[in-house]
C-alpha cells in the first residue's frame, strides 16, 4: 500500500510558497537542455532544408577537415623593418623618461617599450617631486590602447581632415570675434602650454582661459593664495612629522592631488625606537585611516568641530570619546611643536586656512616649493557654467575635461552647451562632452605627445612620445600653434621655451633623458582664475558658513571620495583598473554607498552572501535637494562613522565606454558646489545588487599570530622579540620544538647556498595598500582580466592580492583575547563579524610565497610545478594538465586557474580580445591558455634577464639590480627584492630584522617571501 505520509527534510519544505525550496528546486538541474525549443516546432523542422543526412555529412566533413588541418603546422611570417631604427634592437626593451599629467594624476614615469610599443609604466627614481606613480599611472599604458579612442577630428559628427578642421575653426573664430569664448581646460601645470595659451588669448582677446578640475581643491588653493600669494597647494614631507593628525584627509589616497605615501612610510618604520604618531579623524574608512595608529570615526559635521578644537577652539558639543581623543591629539600636537602636522580635507576655505595657519611653523610643510597640480577656482568655474546655461557665453573650448559628465548640474549644462554658437572639444574619446560638441579635435594619449610640467615649483618634467600616434590625432598645443599662425610644431616650441628659460644653459638632451630637471629658474606661468582678480582675499567672507548646511537636522553626511582604481573617472574604460579590488572593501567593478552597521540596521539595508559565496547588497536612492541618484548599491562598512555615508566619484560613465565597463553610478550630480561633503537623505530601494567582492573573510578568526603580527612601539622597544614575534612551536618527541629547527622538518633541505637565492621582503608597516603593485604585476605578467561575473565567482586572476583584515575587536590582540574567553560555538559566530564600530585594519600583499617545501609541488601528478635552485617555485604551463590539486594544497591560496581562454575570446571582451589591446602584452611572458594553473613567478623573466645582462658584461650582479614588477612599483619601499646569497644585499639585512616573520610559519613551508610585523605607535602622551 502506498503511504500518503509526507516526508520532509527541513521545516522550510512545510511552508507553502517557500522561496528557498522553489529556488533549490529550480537550481537542481540548472542548465536544462532546451529540447522543446529546438524540436517542438514540427513545422519549422519539416520545412528546414537540412535533412538528417545532410547534417551528418556536414558533421563528417568538418570533423575530417579539422583533423586534416591539424596535421600540418601553420606557416609563420616574419616581417623585419625596411629601415631599422638605430635605437631599436628587436627583443630588447628601451626605456624613456616621461611625465603623466592628465589633470588629476601627475607623475614622473619611465616607459618601457618593446619594438616601439609602450608596454609598461615604471617609476622614475631620478625625479624628486610630489608626483607619484599610483595604480592609475601604472595602468595608463593600457588606456593608450583603448579601442574606443577617437581616430580623427570631426565636424558635426562627420570625420574630416585636419586642414578642413583648421579652416572651419579659423572661420568660426572670425565669426565669433568680440563674443565671449571660454577656454576650459584641465590643470596643465605646464610652462610651455601656459605661454602658448597666453599667446592664443592675445591673438583672440575674446577668449578667456578658465581651469576646471573635476575634483576640486579650490578651498585649499584659495587658502594658500590668501596666505602666500601663489595659487598652489602646499607640499608636505610626512617623514619630518612626528605627530600627524588628519581630519578627514586621505593623504595616502588622492588627497590634494599628491600621494604622500613615500614620506609617510619613511616615518613609520621604527628607527632608534622612534616612529611617527598618526591620528585620523574620518567618516569613511580610508587607506589612511587603516594605517593610522588611532582612528576615530567622526562625521563631517563633527570634523568641523574637531578641526576648530584642534586649532584652539573648544571641544564642546562633541561626543565624549571624540572629545577625549581630540584633547589627547591636541596635547600631542603641541608637544611635537615644529614636528607636528595637521591636515584636513574639509572643502571650505576657512577650514583649510585653519590647518594652514596651524602648520605655519611646521617643518613638514613646504610653502616655498608648493604643488601646482590643481588650479581651478570654484567660483570661476561656476561663472562659466552659469554663463553657458544662461547663454551669456557664446563659445566653449574644452581641453582634457568632460564637464557634461563631471559637472554637478550636467543636465542643465548640456542643454546650454548644445545651444552654444561654438562648441569645440579636445578629447581622446567621444565622451559626454565630445558627443555634444559641434567640433571635436581628437587628441593623442600622453604616451604619444610632447609636453612639460611643473608639478612642484622648481621642478620641471618633460613628456616625450614613446610611440607614433596610433590614430589621426593632434595634440592641443599643436592645434593652438596652428591657429595662432605659428609654423613651429610643439616639439620645437617646447624646446625653445626650455632653452630660453628652464634649462638656463643646461643640456636639453640630458633633461629629456632624465625626464626631470630641478631648477630654481622662475618661469612665468600664466596666472589663471582667481588670481587675475587681484590680490584680494578670496571667499573668506562667504565660506565661513560654507558648511553650515551640515548642522541641519536629519539626513546623512555624505563624503564623496575618489577610489584608488578610477580616480576622477578619466580611465573608466581601463579593465585593469575596473578589476582592481578596492583596498578597503575588496570589491571591484563597482562603486557603492558605504554605510555604518547601525545606520544600515535602521534603514533595513542588508549585505548577504548567496549560496556560491558572492556578496549581494541592498539598493538605496540618495536625495540631495532636487537631485536623486537612484539604485545605489550599499556596502556595510565597518568603521564608517555613524550618521555618515560615503560614495566614490568617477563611476557611472556611459559615453565611449565599453558596455562591460559602464559600471557603478555617477556620483557627480551630488557634488554640488564642488563640495565633497553633502547632507543627503537616503531611502531604501527595491532589489539586490550583485557585487564582485574578492574577500569575504573579514577577520583573521583569532589567528593573527600566524597571519599578521602586530605590536605596539612600546612593546617593540622594551620587550624581547620572542614576546611579540615568537617563532611557532611544534611537537617533536612529545616536547615542544621551534618550527625553524631542522629536526622539525620532514623534508631534506634544498641546496641553495650557491648561486642566487631570491627573497622578497614585505614591510607591513610601510605598505599602504595602494594597489600599484597589483597593476604592475598585471602589466608585467600578462595577467588576464576576467570581468565582473567571474570575479564574483572568486575566479579573479590577480597573481598578487592585497588582503585586508579587520579585527573582531578594537585591536587584533583584543580579538584573540575575546575569542579565547568564549565557548567554542560562540567564537565561531563572533569570528565572522568584524568590530563594526571601529575595527583595526591591516593590509597584507600576498603572492606565491615560493616555499622551499612547497605543498603544491608534492601533489602535482605531472610535475608541472617544481622548485628552482634560485628559490623560485616554477610553474611550467605547458606541462600543466589542470587537476588543480596544487591550488587545493596551497595554504596561501595564491594559485589561479584559467577556467576559460581569456585571450581572443569574445566572452571576455577586454584588452586581450582586440589587436590594439594586445599591443600591451609583454612578449617575454606567454599568455596562458584554458585549463592551466598559473601564479606569481617572482618575475623570473626579470631575474633571468638581469643574470643574462651580467653574464654578457662579464660582471657580478650588483645588489638592487634584481627586481620584480611589484617591488619595482612599490613607492614606499615596503617591498624589497634581492639575493640573500649576496652578503651585502639589502634583503638579507631585512631578513635578519627582528620584525621578520613568515606567513603561516607553523605549517613549515619555509617560504622565500617574508613579512615585517606591524608596529603601531599607541603612546597617547
Amino acid at each position, binding site marked *: 500500500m502506498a503511504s500518503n505520509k509526507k516526508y520532509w527534510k527541513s521545516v522550510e519544505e512545510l511552508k507553502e510558497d517557500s522561496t528557498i525550496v522553489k529556488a533549490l528546486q529550480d537550481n537542481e538541474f540548472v542548465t536544462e537542455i532546451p529540447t522543446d525549443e529546438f524540436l517542438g516546432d514540427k513545422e519549422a523542422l519539416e520545412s528546414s532544408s537540412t535533412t538528417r543526412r545532410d547534417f551528418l555529412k556536414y558533421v563528417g566533413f568538418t570533423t575530417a577537415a579539422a583533423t586534416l588541418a591539424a596535421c600540418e603546422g601553420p606557416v609563420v611570417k616574419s*616581417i623585419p623593418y625596411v629601415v631599422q631604427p638605430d635605437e631599436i634592437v628587436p627583443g630588447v626593451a628601451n626605456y624613456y623618461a616621461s611625465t603623466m599629467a592628465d589633470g588629476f594624476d601627475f607623475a614622473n614615469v619611465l616607459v618601457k617599450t618593446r619594438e616601439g610599443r609602450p608596454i609598461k609604466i615604471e617609476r622614475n627614481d631620478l625625479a624628486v617631486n610630489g608626483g607619484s606613480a599610483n595604480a592609475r599611472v601604472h595602468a595608463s599604458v593600457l588606456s593608450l590602447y583603448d579601442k574606443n579612442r577617437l581616430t580623427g577630428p570631426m565636424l558635426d559628427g562627420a570625420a574630416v581632415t585636419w586642414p578642413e578642421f583648421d579652416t572651419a575653426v579659423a572661420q568660426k573664430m572670425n565669426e565669433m570675434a568680440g563674443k565671449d569664448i571660454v577656454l576650459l581646460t584641465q590643470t596643465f601645470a605646464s610652462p610651455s602650454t601656459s605661454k602658448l595659451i597666453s599667446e592664443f588669448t592675445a591673438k583672440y582677446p575674446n577668449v578667456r582661459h578658465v581651469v576646471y578640475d573635476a575634483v576640486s581643491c579650490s578651498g585649499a588653493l584659495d587658502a594658500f593664495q590668501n596666505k602666500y600669494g601663489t595659487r598652489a597647494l602646499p607640499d608636505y614631507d610626512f617623514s619630518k612629522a612626528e605627530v600627524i593628525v588628519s581630519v578627514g584627509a586621505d593623504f595616502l589616497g588622492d588627497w590634494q592631488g599628491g600621494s604622500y605615501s613615500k614620506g609617510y612610510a619613511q616615518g613609520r618604520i621604527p628607527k632608534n625606537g622612534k616612529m611617527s604618531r598618526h591620528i585620523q579623524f574620518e567618516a569613511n574608512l580610508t587607506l589612511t585611516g587603516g594605517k593610522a595608529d588611532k582612528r576615530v570615526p567622526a562625521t563631517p559635521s563633527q570634523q568641523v568641530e574637531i578641526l576648530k578644537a584642534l586649532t584652539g577652539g573648544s571641544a564642546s558639543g562633541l561626543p565624549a570619546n571624540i572629545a577625549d581623543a581630540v584633547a589627547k591629539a591636541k596635547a600631542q600636537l603641541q608637544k611635537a611643536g615644529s614636528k607636528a602636522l595637521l591636515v584636513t580635507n574639509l572643502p571650505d576655505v576657512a577650514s583649510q586656512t585653519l590647518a594652514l595657519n596651524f602648520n605655519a611653523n611646521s617643518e613638514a610643510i613646504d610653502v616655498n616649493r608648493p604643488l601646482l597640480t590643481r588650479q581651478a577656482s570654484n567660483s570661476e568655474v561656476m561663472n562659466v557654467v552659469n554663463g553657458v546655461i544662461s547663454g551669456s557665453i557664446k563659445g566653449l573650448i574644452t581641453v582634457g575635461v568632460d564637464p557634461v559628465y563631471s559637472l554637478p548640474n550636467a543636465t542643465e549644462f548640456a542643454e546650454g552647451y548644445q545651444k552654444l554658437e561654438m562648441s569645440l572639444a579636445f578629447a581622446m574619446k567621444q565622451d559626454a562632452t565630445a558627443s555634444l560638441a559641434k567640433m571635436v579635435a581628437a587628441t593623442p594619449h600622453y604616451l604619444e605627445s610632447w609636453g612639460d610640467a611643473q608639478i612642484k615649483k622648481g621642478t620641471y618634467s618633460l613628456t616625450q612620445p614613446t610611440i607614433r600616434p596610433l590614430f589621426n590625432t593632434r595634440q592641443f598645443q599643436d592645434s593652438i600653434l596652428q591657429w595662432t599662425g605659428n609654423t613651429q610644431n610643439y616639439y620645437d616650441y617646447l624646446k625653445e621655451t626650455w632653452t630660453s628659460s628652464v634649462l638656463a644653459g643646461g643640456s636639453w638632451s640630458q633633461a629629456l633623458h632624465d625626464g626631470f630637471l630641478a631648477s630654481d629658474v622662475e618661469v612665468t606661468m600664466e596666472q589663471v582664475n582667481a588670481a587675475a582678480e587681484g590680490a584680494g582675499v578670496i571667499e573668506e567672507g562667504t565660506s565661513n558658513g560654507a558648511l553650515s548646511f551640515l548642522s541641519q537636522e536629519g539626513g546623512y553626511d555624505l563624503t564623496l571620495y575618489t577610489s584608488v582604481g578610477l580616480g576622477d573617472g578619466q580611465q573608466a574604460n581601463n579593465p585593469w583598473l575596473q578589476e582592481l579590488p578596492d583596498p578597503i572593501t575588496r570589491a571591484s567593478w563597482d562603486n557603492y554607498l558605504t554605510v555604518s552597521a547601525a545606520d544600515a540596521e535602521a534603514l533595513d539595508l542588508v549585505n548577504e552572501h548567496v549560496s556560491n559565496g558572492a556578496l549581494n547588497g541592498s539598493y538605496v536612492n540618495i536625495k540631495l535637494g532636487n537631485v536623486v541618484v537612484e539604485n545605489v548599491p550599499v556596502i556595510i562598512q565597518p568603521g564608517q562613522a555613524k550618521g555618515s555615508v560615503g560614495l566614490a566619484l568617477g563611476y557611472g560613465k556611459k559615453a565611449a565606454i565599453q558596455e562591460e565597463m559602464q559600471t557603478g553610478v555617477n556620483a557627480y550630480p551630488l557634488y554640488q558646489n564642488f563640495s565633497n561633503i553633502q547632507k543627503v537623505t537616503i531611502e531604501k530601494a527595491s532589489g539586490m545588487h550583485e557585487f564582485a567582492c574578492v574577500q569575504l573573510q573579514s577577520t583573521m578568526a583569532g589567528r593573527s599570530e600566524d597571519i599578521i603580527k602586530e605590536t605596539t612601539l612600546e612593546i617593540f622597544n622594551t620587550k624581547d622579540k620572542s614576546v611579540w614575534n615568537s617563532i611557532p612551536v611544534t611537537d617533536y618527541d612529545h616536547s615542544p620544538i621551534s618550527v625553524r629547527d631542522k629536526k622539525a622538518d620532514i623534508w631534506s633541505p634544498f641546496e641553495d647556498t*650557491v648561486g642566487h637565492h631570491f627573497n622578497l621582503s614585505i614591510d607591513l608597516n610601510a605598505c599602504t595598500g595602494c594597489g600599484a603593485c597589483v597593476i604592475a604585476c598585471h602589466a608585467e605578467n600578462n595577467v588576464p582580466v576576467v570581468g565582473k561575473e567571474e570575479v564574483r565567482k572568486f575566479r579573479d586572476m590577480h597573481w598578487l592580492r592585497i588582503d585586508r583584515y579587520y579585527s573582531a575587536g578594537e585591536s587584533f590582540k583584543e580579538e584573540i583575547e575575546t575569542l579565547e574567553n568564549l565557548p567554542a560555538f560562540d567564537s565561531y559566530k563572533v569570528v565572522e563579524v568584524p568590530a563594526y564600530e571601529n575595527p583595526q585594519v591591516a593590509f597584507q600583499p600576498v603572492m606565491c610565497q615560493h616555499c622551499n617545501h612547497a605543498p603544491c609541488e608534492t601533489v602535482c601528478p605531472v610535475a608541472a610545478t617544481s622548485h628552482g635552485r634560485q628559490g623560485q617555485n616554477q610553474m611550467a604551463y605547458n606541462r600543466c594538465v589542470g587537476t588543480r590539486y596544487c591550488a587545493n594544497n596551497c595554504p596561501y591560496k595564491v594559485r589561479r586557474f584559467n577556467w576559460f581562454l581569456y585571450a581572443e575570446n569574445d566572452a571576455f571582451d577586454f584588452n586581450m580580445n582586440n589587436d590594439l589591446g594586445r599591443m600591451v602584452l609583454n612578449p617575454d611572458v606567454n599568455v596562458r591558455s584554458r585549463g592551466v594553473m598559473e601564479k606569481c613567478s617572482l618575475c623570473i623573466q626579470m631575474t633571468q634577464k638581469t643574470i643574462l645582462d651580467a653574464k654578457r658584461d662579464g660582471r657580478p650582479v650588483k645588489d638592487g639590480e634584481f627586481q620584480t614588477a611589484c617591488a619595482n612599483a612599490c613607492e614606499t619601499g615596503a617591498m624589497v627584492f634581492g639575493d640573500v646569497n649576496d652578503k651585502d644585499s639589502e634583503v638579507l639585512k631585512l631578513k635578519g630584522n627582528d620584525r621578520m616573520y613568515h606567513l603561516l610559519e607553523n605549517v613549515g613551508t619555509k617560504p622565500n617571501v617574508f613579512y615585517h610585523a606591524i608596529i603601531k605607535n599607541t603612546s597617547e602622551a
Partner: protein
Amino acid sequence: MKKVNFIHLRSKLPLLLLVFLLTFSTTIYSQDAPAETPTEASAGVATGAGGDAAAGEALFKANCAACHKLDKKAVGPALRGVGEKFDRDWLYKWIHNSQALIAAGDAQAVKLFEENNKAVMTAFPALSETDIDDILAYTDQPKADPVAAAGAETATSNAGNDGGSVSNSIVIAALALIFLLLVIMLFLVTNTLKRIAEANGVVYEEKEKRTPIWKAFVQNQFLVLVFSIFLLLSAGYFAYGYMMQVGVDQGYAPVQPIHYSHKIHAGDNQIDCNFCHSSARKSKHSGIPSLNVCMNCHKNISEVAPETATEEYSKEFYDGEIAKLYKAVGWDPAEQKYTGKTEPVKWVRIHNLPDFAYFNHSQHVTVAGIACQTCHGEIQEMEIVEQFAPLTMGWCINCHRETNVNLATNEYYAKIHEELSKKYGVEKLTIAEMGGLECGKCHY
C-alpha cells in the same frame, strides 16, 4: 600550410641516390664537360685585348669600381667608352681633381657635375697618366656579347639536361621491353615444352596435398601469440616514432619571397653571420636583417658576377632577386636614389619555437660562444636554408647535459665557481649542474 618531407625518407635517401647514381653515372659525367667550356672562352676574350687593358682592369677594380660600372649607372655614370667621349687631357685633370676643375669654372666639368646629382668624385692625384691610360684602355674595350654567350650556355646545358632525361627514359623503356620479351619467351618455352611432354605421354606425379602454410600457422597458437606480440610491439614502435615527429619540422625549407642564398653570402663571400644578424649578440632574437642592412652592400652590387651562376640558378635569376630587394626597399637603380615606396618583405619563418619556450640567442652566442652552425647546421653551404636541428626539448636538454659552462673567463661565474669547486672539488660544470634543466629557466 607548411610541408616537411618525410623525415624517415631521409635515411633511405642516400641508398636510393646511390643506386640512381650508379645507374646513370656515365651520363652525368658526360654532361659536366661541355658546360665548362663557355666560361673559359669568355675569360679568353678579356685577356686577349692587350696588356694595357689588363693593368687597367686591376686599377679600375681597386679605385673606380666602388662608384662606377662599365655599362650601368651606379653612384657615378657608366664608364664604357668614356675615353672616346672626352678629351684625354681634360680627363687627366678631372680624374686627378674634379672639384678643382669645377671650382675653376670649366663648363664641361660643371655640366657633368650637375648631371650626376652633384655627387663629388674622389680626387686621385696618385694615379699617373699612364695609369689613367691603362684604365681608359680597359673601359674603352668593346662590350663582349654576354647575352649571346649566356644564351648559348643555357641552350647547351638545357640540351644536355634534356638529352639526359630523354636517354634515361629510353634506357628504362628499353630495359623494360627486354624484360617483358624475356618473360613472354619464358612463358612460351614452358608452354611448348609442356605440350611436347603431353604429346610424348609423360605423366606427372601428383603432388601430395599438404596443409597450407597459413592453416598450419593459425593452428600453432604459440606462433600466433609470438607473432601478435611482435606485431603489436613493432606497431607501437613505429607509431611512437611517427607521433614523435609530428610538429618536428627538421628539414623544413620553405620557399622565401626573395631567394636569398646563404651559400653565396656566408659561404663564398665569407660574411660573418653577426654582420647581418647583429642582434643575435645582444637580444633574444637573432633578428632577420632589415633591408637597409642589405643595401649597405647591395647599393653597389646590383648584379651577381657571372661565376656566381650555377646550373640550377642562372645569373638572370639572381639579378632578378636583387631587383626584388630594390623593389622592396624602394631603391631606383637607374636614378640611384630611394623612391620612398617600400614593400616590407614577408619572410617565411623557418625556426618556430612554441610561445611557451623562451630561447635567448645572446645567451648562447655571446655568453656561451656557441657557433651558429651548432644549431643551424652548415648554413654557409645552404642555398636554401632548412631547419637543421629538430628543436625538440630533448635536443635542448641533451646539449645542456653535455656542454660545460665556460667558467674561467667570465667574472660573473667567479663566485659560483669558487663556491662550487670548494664544495665538490670540481673544475668543470655542465649547464645542467648549474640549474640549466629547471623548467622555469625556459618556460615562463
